[in-house]
């Protein structure tokens, strides 16, 4: 989970690296689906660039998840925590 930092203030959080790895697609493939340069995906993943709404929507669509599953203004809880808690609820 990465956060974009400008003037010490986090701007947004992203799960892009996790979601991309989960789907087994390369930065270049995702870049082609989103219509950007592959380098831009790297900057997004490292939290060094804030995407426009259109680009964020395109990325979410390419990953077939809602926008708020990829980008958030508040920190994401870790996938492991979420899975563990969910399993705990089902027991």
């Amino acid at each position, binding site marked *: 989970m990465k956060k974009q930092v400008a003037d010490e203030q986090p701007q947004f959080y992203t799960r892009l690296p996790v979601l991309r790895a989960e789907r087994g697609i390369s930065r270049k493939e995702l870049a082609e689906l989103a219509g*950007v340069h592959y380098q831009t995906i790297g900057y997004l993943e490292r939290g060094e660039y804030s995407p*426009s709404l259109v680009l964020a929507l395109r990325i979410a669509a390419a990953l077939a998840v809602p926008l708020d599953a990829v980008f958030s203004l508040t920190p994401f809880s870790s996938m492991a925590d979420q899975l563990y808690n969910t399993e705990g609820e089902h027991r």
Partner: protein
Amino acid sequence: MNASPTSQQRRAARLDDPSMESLRNPRARRLLAAGLLAVLVAEGVIIGFVALMPIGVFVGGMVVLSIALVFTLGGLKASTRGVEELSPEVLDERQAQIRGLVYAQSYRVLSVVFVITVALMLLAQSPWWAAPMEVMVIIPVISWQLILTIPTFVTALRMKV
């Protein structure tokens, strides 16, 4: 049916050539920028000493320097993927944003270079500095080339591309 790529698309593909990846790091960019400045200084020196050398040496030197200029400038543009010169149609939103920042910073640098050029030209014509004719050629020739390459310098040295 796929439309054939435009000249801008072909240029973008050439400047994004993966074989140039070794140039896309801050150290290589600084070296190329220093090399380009060295070529411009060497041009000034050759023009400055034109009266002291045979015409063949001058022409040969200028040809060599022109080739060096093409290679260093080409390398520098490849190192930045040409975001400073390509049209926004072939850039993505991040690259277009960088292009905007480059032009804003280049405008400020260009203003300074322009003022210095005009000041030097006026000074060279003043009675206090009996500047030789060569100086009146060196100042505009070097300034012009410097002004044309300012966006590339700014991109290579100031931007994360």
